[in-house]
């Protein structure tokens, strides 16, 4: 715990900042209160419905860089003459993602690593380049949160361009983390002041449930472990966990239209679906739900750190909240570490 120097953004300066962002052509996504729930939505102005004390939204902002449906190109074919029309990348939106928690900001790392792993996905990379992430430290958490177990802190600025922490007065302690953050600051310098404070004193304390590296080691040699079947018995095989997950990247490519004219579309898919790995031959290497549950866990906690040096889980707890049958991921990860791998 230490006192440090921060920029200060007063609550009453927020409307002016939002107006400036909108006027400069940015699209702002912010956590907006809607009844009991808070979800990210596009806003053009600051309003009191913007909730800076929410715990977690149902959906992440993954869709702003990896939309649930994205047209890759239009195609036209006239016998031998085939042409492809890609979208105008210069027209992609300049997004400001306002008030994401550190888990969500950190989630752009695995997305980025995946979409430039063996091929540079210019759709994702262009959207990412045009995105400014304004993170918000967490003042609250619930029993589904486990960021500290996956080595993220509720005050971490990793993945954010600007980091906000709300102080007791309701104003924000501001850290300018990257050049993109600096650009936003430079645009509205007059709205910021200076303050010495200790941001850690405003942060919620998320208990650590397990050790990430220990889990990663433990998963070695777990492929045939009996717990996959036991844990997945009640899994009904929907894609709710994958679709609310800020780091799941499975997608499907669909051609819509006719043979001579149409579009190719990239759309979300999930490894939890039974037909996801179904081969044309009829063979399905992941025929059962337990194999698919194993894939979900091993992909995030074993294959991703091995291959792209980043874990695939940010501890946001969305999958566990959304699961219709309470497949709670942190509970299952703890059990994996406690239970024997061999029968």
């Amino acid at each position: 715990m230490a006192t440090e120097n921060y920029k200060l953004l007063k609550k009453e300066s927020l409307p002016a900042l939002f107006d400036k962002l909108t006027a400069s052509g940015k699209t702002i996504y912010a956590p907006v209160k809607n009844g009991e729930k808070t979800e990210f939505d596009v806003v053009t102005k600051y309003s009191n419905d913007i909730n800076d004390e929410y715990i977690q939204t149902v959906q992440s902002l993954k869709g702003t860089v990896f939309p649930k449906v994205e047209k890759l190109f239009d195609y036209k074919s006239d016998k031998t003459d085939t042409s492809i029309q890609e979208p105008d990348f210069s027209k992609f939106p300049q997004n400001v993602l306002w008030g994401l928690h550190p888990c969500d900001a950190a989630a752009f790392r695995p997305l980025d690593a995946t979409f430039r792993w063996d091929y540079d996905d210019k759709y994702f990379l262009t959207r990412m380049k045009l995105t400014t992430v304004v993170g918000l430290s967490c003042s609250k958490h619930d029993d589904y949160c486990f960021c500290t177990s996956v080595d993220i802190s509720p005050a971490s600025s990793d993945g954010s361009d600007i980091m906000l922490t709300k102080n007791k007065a309701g104003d924000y302690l501001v850290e300018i983390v990257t050049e993109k953050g600096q650009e936003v600051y430079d645009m509205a310098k007059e709205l910021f002041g200076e303050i010495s404070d200790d941001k850690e004193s405003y942060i919620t304390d998320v208990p650590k449930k397990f050790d990430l590296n220990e889990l990663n080691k433990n998963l070695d040699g777990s492929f045939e472990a009996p717990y996959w079947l036991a844990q997945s018995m009640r899994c009904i095989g929907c894609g709710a966990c994958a679709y609310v997950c800020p780091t799941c990247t499975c997608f499907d490519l669909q051609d819509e239209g006719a043979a001579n004219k149409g579009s190719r579309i990239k759309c979300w898919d999930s490894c939890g679906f039974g037909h996801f790995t179904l081969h044309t031959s009829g063979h399905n290497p992941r025929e059962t739900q337990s194999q698919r549950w194993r894939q979900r866990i091993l992909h995030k906690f074993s294959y991703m750190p091995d291959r792209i040096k980043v874990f695939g889980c940010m501890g946001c707890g969305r999958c566990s909240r959304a699961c219709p049958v309470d497949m709670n991921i942190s509970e299952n990860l703890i059990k994996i570490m406690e239970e024997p791998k061999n029968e």
Partner: protein
Amino acid sequence: MDKLKQLAKELLSNNQVQIIVGYEEGTVGKARPAFISSPDQADTLIYDERCIHNLAVYLTQHKLPGNTKIAVIASFPVMKSIITLASEKQLDENFIKVIGISKDNNIIEFKDFADIERYINQQDLSFTPEEQALIDKIDAMSMEERWEYWQNEFSRCFKCYACRSACPMCYCTLCITDFNQPQWVSVPSHKLGNFEWHINRAMHLAGRCIGCDECSRACPLDLPINLLTKKLSMDIQKQFGYSAGQSLTEPYALSTYKPDDKETFIR
């Protein structure tokens, strides 16, 4: 619910069944489906107002080895689901023992499916005023308002198919939406794809839906899609006098031809 635990222990110890599908304490104050396979696990069984999942969904998932005898804890919607599944020839009575739980929390040991059918028909089967009010609200809208309402709701859908997975009546091994030769339903969750999916889902459940509301409960985005199948159930009851989950033998209204049909065009 000590009696339930006791019964579960007996069924498992004398090998009358090998698995009991019931409920256990979940995380963060939730109850959740549980699979009990040994008498000493039976103490984890619970039953209270949080136990709302329609467990009949597990009876057609083929997760268990063949010849496994299953006992299932059955609230009223589960009983109705079992009768519908049985009438559609999806369940083998010899492998399923149904432990019913009445509305006042008493255990009913059903002898066979016919016993469940008798019990169901002794209960009040009318739609509740709350259900009726939800449908009336949609019915009161003009065509344009209704179109607008469903467009708004469907546009939020991201096609995770939790509605399909949670529904006991969605047991097809190849759902129409996964069929790709030919592609009947547009895959992406854009406007057309979402409309096609939800209209197909509703039509395939028309009059087969027993009204457990599990689809909308499972939906992470809280889409009120249960209203579509509920409305269709009401219409089919009115038009054909048929209600799902009440008869083991009465054939499904929309796939049946009767020579004495009241409509003349079909004769």
